């Protein structure tokens, strides 16, 4: 009997150790609490693998952390930072696109978690104080999910006659969906759908086709939504656009600003200064950065000598990421002054193929 008891105790202990070691990622995620400034995500669509490399302000590599999630992040669907947490969508293996989670890094605790949003391979998402809103188009149906940050409960709804959701944004208890539409005759258009963030009831729906069919991310300044029009529809063709769209929520009026360069693909706002990255994300061409003052409407364009497909502005610094390198600029004195550059493509193995997908700033 004593032998049996000892045997059972040893086996139970072995099981517990095995379970614990399997649950722990085996890497020190407290690195997120260290003095790092930028996280660069390298991922692959061939396997469920991602590597996140952390760099300090001097662009020195601090550490790299690996995760079993594929196709994490994208220049088309950027990571979001909210309340010292970073959220990013992993689609999974590219030809399956079956992951239903948003990956979350808690920068105050140095922990990570996967939040189930109930949508496979979300292609657009937005995080506000209370929810993660996400969307995907499968089998002719475009779905919208809302996942509570408190209890992770998810609600779903379907968006009729929407080909694809370009961008999601919330402001003042209103959920804004910038959607691409497609008619039977093959014409593309766009629609801005406004829903109540709590009830998901429809507030308003506006045909936005004259303002473009594919757009940058959305931001807001005072009572105005701001986004860039990257392409517009003209004579049955999709053509380049170079307009900034300003949607005044108090008057429901729309104004456009002609920019100095085409493809305003991404916006970053700091105070009244809007930084606009001009880049063609599909063709991987980049051109420059416009700085537009939303109070004075002063516009200055800076041509870039390197590629850039994502920008983040924080504390008077601009961080820009290309396919292999990271560049920083000082924004003091209302200028864009180059500071430093670092090669950030750490994963160079031939199989699987890793690519730099996006970054986040601490």
């Amino acid at each position, binding site marked *: 009997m004593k032998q049996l008891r000892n045997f059972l105790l040893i086996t139970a202990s072995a099981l517990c150790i095995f379970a614990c070691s399997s649950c722990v990622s085996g890497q020190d995620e407290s690195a997120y609490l260290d003095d790092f400034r930028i996280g660069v995500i390298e991922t692959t669509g061939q396997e469920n693998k991602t590597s996140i490399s952390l760099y300090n302000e001097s662009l020195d590599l601090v550490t790299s952390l690996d995760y079993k999630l594929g196709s994490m992040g994208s220049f088309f669907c950027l990571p979001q930072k909210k309340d010292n947490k970073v959220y990013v969508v992993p689609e999974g293996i590219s030809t399956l*696109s079956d*992951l239903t989670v948003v990956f979350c890094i808690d920068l105050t605790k140095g922990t990570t978690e996967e939040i189930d949003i109930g949508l496979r391979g979300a292609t657009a998402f937005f995080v506000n104080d209370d929810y993660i809103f996400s969307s995907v188009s*499968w089998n002719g149906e475009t779905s919208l999910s809302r996942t509570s940050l408190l209890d992770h409960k998810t609600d779903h709804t379907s968006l009729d006659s929407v080909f694809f959701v370009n961008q999601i944004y919330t402001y003042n208890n209103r959920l804004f969906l910038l959607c691409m539409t497609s008619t039977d005759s093959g014409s593309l258009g766009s629609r801005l759908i406004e829903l109540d963030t709590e009830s998901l009831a429809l507030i308003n729906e506006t045909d936005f086709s004259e303002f473009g069919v*594919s757009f940058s991310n959305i931001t807001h300044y005072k009572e105005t939504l701001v986004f860039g029009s990257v*392409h517009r529809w003209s004579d049955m063709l999709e053509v380049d656009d170079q307009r900034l769209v300003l949607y005044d929520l108090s008057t429901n009026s729309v104004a456009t600003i002609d920019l100095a360069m085409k493809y305003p693909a991404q916006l970053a706002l700091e105070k009244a200064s809007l930084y606009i990255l001009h880049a063609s994300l599909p063709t991987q061409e980049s051109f420059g950065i416009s700085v537009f003052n939303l109070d004075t409407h002063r516009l200055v364009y800076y041509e870039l000598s390197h590629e850039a497909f994502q920008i983040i502005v924080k504390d008077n610094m601009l961080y820009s990421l290309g396919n292999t390198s990271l560049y920083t600029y000082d924004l003091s004195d209302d200028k864009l002054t180059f500071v430093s550059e670092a090669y950030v493509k750490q994963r160079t193995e031939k199989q699987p193929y890793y690519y730099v997908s996006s970054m986040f700033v601490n």
Partner: protein
Amino acid sequence: MHKSKRNTISHLIAILVVVVLAFSTMLSPAYANSASKNKETSLEKRFAAADIYDEGSCDDYARAVSDMVLSSTVFADKSENFDPRSDQLTAVRGFGTYPTRRGVILVTDDKYKNLFPTGHAGIVASSSTIIDSLADGVKIRANNWNTAHKTCYGVTVGSTTVAQDAQAVDWCGTKTGKPYNYDFSNVSTRSKFYCSQLVWAAFKDKFGIDLNTSAYGAVVHPSELVSTPKTGTIYVK
């Protein structure tokens, strides 16, 4: 030791072994992968498809197509007014520009873990989106193959207009909701599709253009959309 106690211990050991085996299986990557697969993925279907697509022959074919493309002409994409009755695709130097025009076909040779080693095919739906057929159905997603794939070809059908290429995309869009076709040689069905079959069927049904070659018989391997003389390569990554 008393016989009944011995039996009890034996039973307990057997139970523990079963629990350990079950636990280790649940935590294995293979289980995690299979847990997320489409419900239709049966072993019988996967074996049938695997008979057609063995890794060795797929690697050889992908290499042959790559060699062919690199030693052949890359063309400029069609102009807006391209008329196949009188115009021909124009040769360019270099590797072309990544496609954003509706109806351009995208093909990659990249291989995916635990999946058939055939690469993948899709079709450009707009400058920023593509349509492709995956295990769970037809999805619309970002036109990011230039970034997300190691290999990528953009090809356009030589005998169609720009408007007709757009119609091919619209045709693909009407086939959403169909299940995945694991019977790769059954390309005549229109009730289910695999990735390259969807693209092939669009041009076949709309315009009577057969983009298949004899490389895999009736099966439409993604790379055949590149190697067929009926398409011109307009981009090579």
